[in-house]
Structures are given as structure tokens and as C-alpha cells.
């Protein structure tokens, strides 16, 4: 029988099929290959194990890092916020007690959990990956079935290395064509979300397909899969190919020797069969896509950067209309304003969506040899300590510092504002992160989601901009590029 990629990965992990059929079917029990843990959604799960006298079943399939609640400055000093410090210390104590490998602040492998897994080679095609974080969908870029779970499920995986899950429906997102210069993976996924809505993917696993997806790097595929959750889908994936294998080869936990050959043989079977049937199909034309940006307070409220802020009257649905009215009020925007006329106070380059080395390179290429708009504050937060080291080896830190940006240590930072990196009330931010919810980046803060190159161009001009809006860079900039 013909199967989609998601169904193949699912079938390979069924420990026990649920009793019953159709609507009365009980969930399947699925085996989990990798459990990623961080400080925020794990303390209550560890405590649950302790209270029930249960063991953590597979420490060797579990890894922890500190990311959500860590500072990005002065990381060699004790964490100033006492509650944050307690939460980090709790993770350290729990990992020691239960024998979990932990990459702490200051460690070269510390960083955002969804950057760390792939970078260590722990995320591989055909795996099931879970984490108490909704952006676990990121790992789907490798052809893994990866999903975010709540703390009760974190505890369940710790105790049993399995999850009870009801089968998902499948949705093919077909992106055909060639992206124009300055248009990136972030623009693809923002356009997909605007098209199907924040609930459009609910109950589905998304598979991103088509020539435009095949042409993308692993970093770019991770950006797309990362935001599957913003379309309501719990998981999104891309079939593995030579690009995947080239990225994986030689990473610390990638298979070696005969294991590598056996793995590749298996990975090559991980694509949707030609005659497999998806429950839904969505098509997006890469040729005509432009840089995309959000204007509202949910990730589905987006338009092309060359477009205008919509009017609530543009929406037929009463709920969408009311949501637009509320969003415009919160965002302090007038309908009909050109997006490119919107001035920002802050630019944030970071988060599990866009903080990998390729994202930093792309932004650096835009700003090299230019000056930041003096009114704008720019924060650059690498996704992991490893990415930061890599960037410094390439001289990217100098490019950002010369430009006038702040070069920070790794973590989730201003994406969710749990640490001191927050917006002030009314402050407007062009952010490469994934959520523009009310207050997400700080109480009263206003977020526009953008790609790294749009973030960089915006920092130059002070208004939402794409690289094509910039004057040619001074001649010396090109020389600097060669030197780097």
C-alpha cells in the first residue's frame, strides 16, 4: 500500500497498535527515539517521576540544554533573577539525579534545544523526536516525525520512552518554482500560514514538497518546519535527500562506517510513494513570492512587504474582522499604511526559527560596510554557543559590531522574553522569531515577523525594508566580504 513519509515513520515506531477501528480507535503507542529537555517544561515532570518512584527509562535517548530562561549577557556571573536561577539549578539537579546529559550555560554545545539537536547530529531522518516545546517541529527538516508535547507527556516519555498518539491526517504543501533573490524560507512559511490560517494545519502533519523545497539548505528547511506549529500543525517534514546527508555526515552523533551505509539505505526509503494520497493539498508559487511580513498579532496576519496594512473590512468572516480590528489597535497601525513606511525601534535576529550560521551569514551580507539607523537597537543572538564560535571564526561578530548591533550569547532570548531581553510597552520590533502574539516579546511590545535579510535591511533604513530597497553598498564592503 502506498504511504506518505509521515505514515512510514509512524508505522516504523508503533510499539502497540490501539484497539478498535475508525472513530472508536484507541491511540497507538509510539516509540520515541530522542527526547530533548530544557529547564522550563521539565521540572514538574521530573517531580512527577520522583513522587511516583519511577525511573527515567532511557537516559541514553535523552539530552538537556539550558535555553529559554538564560541571560545572553554576563553568562559567567550568577543569574541575577532569583526565580530564573532556581529554575536553571533545578534542571542541573534533576539531570544529575536522573543521569541526563546536560549542556549548561558556558558549555560549547549549549544553546536553543532545536539548534543543538541537529548540530550534534542527534536529529536524523526517520526518527521520532519530542520535546516540551512546540517548535520541536523544526527537526522535521530531516524527515523525522518531530512534535512538541506538554509537561504531562514529557513525564510520560521519561517514564516509558513512548507516547500514546492518535494518527494524524496528512497535508502536502507543494512549493514549485525558484525564489527571487532576497526571498527566503521564512517568506515561504509566512506565506503558507497566511494562506491556510493559524488553524489550517490543525490535526495534520505537513509535508513540504516541490522544487523550491528541494533547492533549500538544511537551515532553510528547519526554518520552514519550525513554523508548522504556527499553521496549527503539530509536525511538518521534508523528505531526506543528498542535502540532508551532506549536512549530517561527520557530525558527532551521525552514524559512521557500516552504520552510515545501513542508515543511508534506510533513509533512502523515506519519501512519500508516488501514488500516496494526502488528505489535503496546498500549492504555493515560489516564482511570484515576495518578502513577507506580519502586520497583526497572530502569525497568519501577514502580507507581502510591498503591500499595505489591510482594513478589517477586507475580511468577510466576523471573527477574522474582529481579530483584525483588535490587532490594529494593539499594533498601533492604521489600515492602508504601506508596510515599508512602518518605523521600528528594535531588530531581533535570533530564535529557533532563524539563528543558525546561515541566517547570521545572510544578515551579515546585507549590512556589511553599512551603518545602522541610529534610532534602531539591534540584538543578534546566535542559536547556540557553537554557532557563536563559528560566526566569530568567520568574523561575522565584527560585521555586526561594526554595524552597531549587540552581539550576545546563545539562547531563546527576545523570542519569548523570559529573560531580561524584552521589548518595552509600545516598542516596535522587526523580529526573525516565530510569534507576534500580544506581549510575546515583552508586555505591550509590537512584533513584526520577518526573515533575517529583511531584519538586516530594516536595521539599515529604520523602516521595514528588503535588501532590494538599499542603495548599493560602498565599494569597500565587497573587499571586506572577500577578506572574511
Amino acid at each position, binding site marked *: 500500500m502506498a504511504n506518505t513519509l509521515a505514515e512510514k515513520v509512524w508505522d516504523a515506531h508503533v510499539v502497540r497498535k490501539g484497539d478498535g477501528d475508525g472513530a472508536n480507535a484507541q491511540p497507538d503507542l509510539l516509540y520515541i527515539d530522542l527526547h530533548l529537555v530544557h529547564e522550563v517544561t521539565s521540572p514538574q515532570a521530573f517531580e512527577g517521576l520522583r513522587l511516583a518512584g519511577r525511573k527515567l527509562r532511557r537516559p541514553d535517548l535523552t*539530552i538537556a540544554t539550558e535555553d529559554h530562561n538564560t541571560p545572553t549577557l554576563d553568562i559567567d556571573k550568577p543569574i541575577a533573577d532569583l526565580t530564573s536561577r532556581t529554575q536553571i539549578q533545578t534542571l542541573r539537579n534533576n539531570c544529575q539525579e536522573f543521569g541526563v*546529559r546536560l549542556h549548561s550555560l558556558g558549555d560549547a554545545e549549549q544553546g536553543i534545544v532545536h539548534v543543538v539537536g541537529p548540530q550534534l547530529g542527534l536529529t*536524523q531522518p526517520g526518527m521520532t523526536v519530542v520535546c516540551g516545546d512546540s517548535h520541536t517541529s523544526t527537526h522535521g527538516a530531516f524527515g523525522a516525525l518531530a512534535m*512538541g508535547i506538554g509537561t504531562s507527556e514529557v513525564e510520560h516519555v521519561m517514564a516509558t520512552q513512548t507516547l500514546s498518539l492518535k494518527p494524524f491526517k496528512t497535508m502536502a504543501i507543494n512549493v514549485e518554482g525558484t525564489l527571487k533573490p532576497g526571498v527566503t524560507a521564512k517568506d515561504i512559511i509566512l506565506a503558507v500560514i497566511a494562506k491556510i490560517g493559524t488553524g489550517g494545519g*490543525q490535526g495534520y502533519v505537513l509535508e513540504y514538497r516541490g522544487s523550491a523545497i528541494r533547492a533549500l539548505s538544511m537551515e532553510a528547511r528547519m526554518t520552514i518546519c519550525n513554523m508548522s506549529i504556527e499553521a496549527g500543525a503539530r509536525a511538518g517534514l521534508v523528505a531526506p535527500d543528498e542535502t540532508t546527508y551532506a549536512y549530517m555526515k561527520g557530525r558527532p*552523533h551521525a552514524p559512521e562506517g557500516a552504520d552510515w551505509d545501513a542508515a543511508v539505505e534506510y533513509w533512502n526509503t523515506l519519501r512519500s510513494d508516488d501514488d500516496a494520497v494526502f488528505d489535503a493539498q496546498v500549492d504555493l508559487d515560489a516564482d511570484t513570492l515576495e518578502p513577507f511580513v506580519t502586520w497583526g498579532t497572530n502569525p497568519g496576519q501577514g502580507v507581502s512587504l510591498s503591500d499595505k496594512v489591510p482594513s478589517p473590512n477586507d475580511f468577510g468572516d466576523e471573527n477574522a474582522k474582529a481579530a483584525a480590528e483588535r490587532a490594529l489597535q494593539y499594533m498601533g497601525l492604521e489600515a492602508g499604511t504601506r508596510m515599508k513606511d512602518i518605523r521600528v525601534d528594535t531588530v531581533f535576529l535570533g530564535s529557533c526559527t532563524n539563528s543558525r550560521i546561515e541566517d547570521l551569514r545572510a544578515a551579515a551580507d546585507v549590512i556589511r560596510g553599512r551603518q545602522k539607523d541610529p534610532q534602531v537597537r539591534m540584538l543578534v543572538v546566535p542559536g547556540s554557543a557553537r554557532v557563536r564560535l563559528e560566526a566569530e571564526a568567520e568574523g561575522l561578530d565584527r560585521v555586526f559590531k561594526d554595524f552597531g548591533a549587540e552581539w550576545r550569547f546563545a539562547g531563546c532570548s527576545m523570542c519569548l522574553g*523570559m529573560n531580561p531581553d524584552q521589548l518595552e510597552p509600545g516598542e516596535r520590533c522587526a523580529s526573525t522569531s516565530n510569534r507576534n502574539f500580544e506581549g510575546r516579546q515583552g508586555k505591550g511590545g509590537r512584533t513584526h515577523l520577518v526573515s533575517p535579510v529583511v531584519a538586516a535591511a530594516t536595521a539599515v533604513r529604520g523602516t521595514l525594508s528588503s535588501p532590494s530597497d538599499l542603495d548599493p553598498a560602498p565599494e569597500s564592503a565587497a573587499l571586506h566580504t572577500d577578506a572574511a
Partner: protein
Amino acid sequence: MEKFTTHTGIGVPLRQSNVDTDQIIPAVYLKRITRTGFEDALFSAWRKDPSFILNQAPFNAGSVLVAGPDFGTGSSREHAVWALKDYGFKTVLSSRFADIFRGNSGKQGLLAAELAQDDIELIWKTLENAPGTEVTVDLVSKTVICGNLVAPFAIDDYTRWRLLEGLDDIGLTLKHEEDITAYEATRPAFKPKTLPARLS
């Protein structure tokens, strides 16, 4: 987990779509390491506004939240469910829930009942015209009763059974521990392990 069969309580009309979990509980409250005591955190940004529905009697004593579509989107934080429960909500009605939120609710005994949007609109009107109206949510018959309205709601059978019985998921799974061990013996050798650690 406490059993859920039927609940009757004051309905709270929350006329808003896309209520994400950052609104239900902002990230700043996620620094806590306890599982209870989140009642102050629920909708904390919105509760600063005196006109917010939970700042008005009798809605502040509500236990049935009636929300717009796409409730619980965004972050996976189970704290959102804890905060709703700690405040006193027993059930949330919406025409569409985010998957992770719905899953978390089921684990914690908060009933996420999916109704047709037309029925949600009728309930909103009743609750707004007669504040303090009680809503009955009957999990046995899968119906909601509000004023003259009797409306069916959807919930998957497995979650319904677990809620009715008040069953703990881990205990259920561990009954099949032999199956888990048998599966582990079949896993290919090339699958990665986190231990011993290999570094770059």
C-alpha cells in the same frame, strides 16, 4: 486525575479568536517549578484591564469558559491548562482547539469540548443577555445545555473514557511494558544515543 462526568457552572463568554497560550499565561510565570498556584497568572495581561470579562461579577466566579475559534494556539506550555484549572475553570468550549492544548487538557482533567461555531454564538448571546447563566457540560451524553439550547459537542472517545474514569496515562502505558522492551530489541544499531556524549 479526578473523574469528570458532568459539570454545571457560570459561563464566561470570551468573544475572541486565536487566544494563544501566551495570553492564557505569559512567559514570565513559566519560571516557577511548581505545578499549582497559577491562578494569579491566568490572562494576567488582560486582567489588568478593568473591563476584561473576568474582572466583572458574576463572570469572575465562572467555571465554563466559552471562547472563539483556535483556542490555545502557540506555545506547548501545559501551564496554560494549570492556570485555567487553578482559577477554577473545569471546561473550555470552542469551535476549534490547538492540538497540543487539547492534548494537555485531556491529561489534566480539563474538558476541551468542541462545539459548532453557531452554537458558540448562541451561548455567547445567552450569557451576555443574562450574566450568571449556568452552563451544563455533560460528558456522558456529550451535550452542552445553556438556557433553551441543547447542543452536542465532540471529543475523541479515548480522551472521554480517560476523563470519565479519571485514569493516569503513565500507569496505563506501563501495563504494556513488555511490548516496549520487545520493540527496543528491534531498533537498528545506527539509531543515535546521547550517551556516551560525542563532541565536535
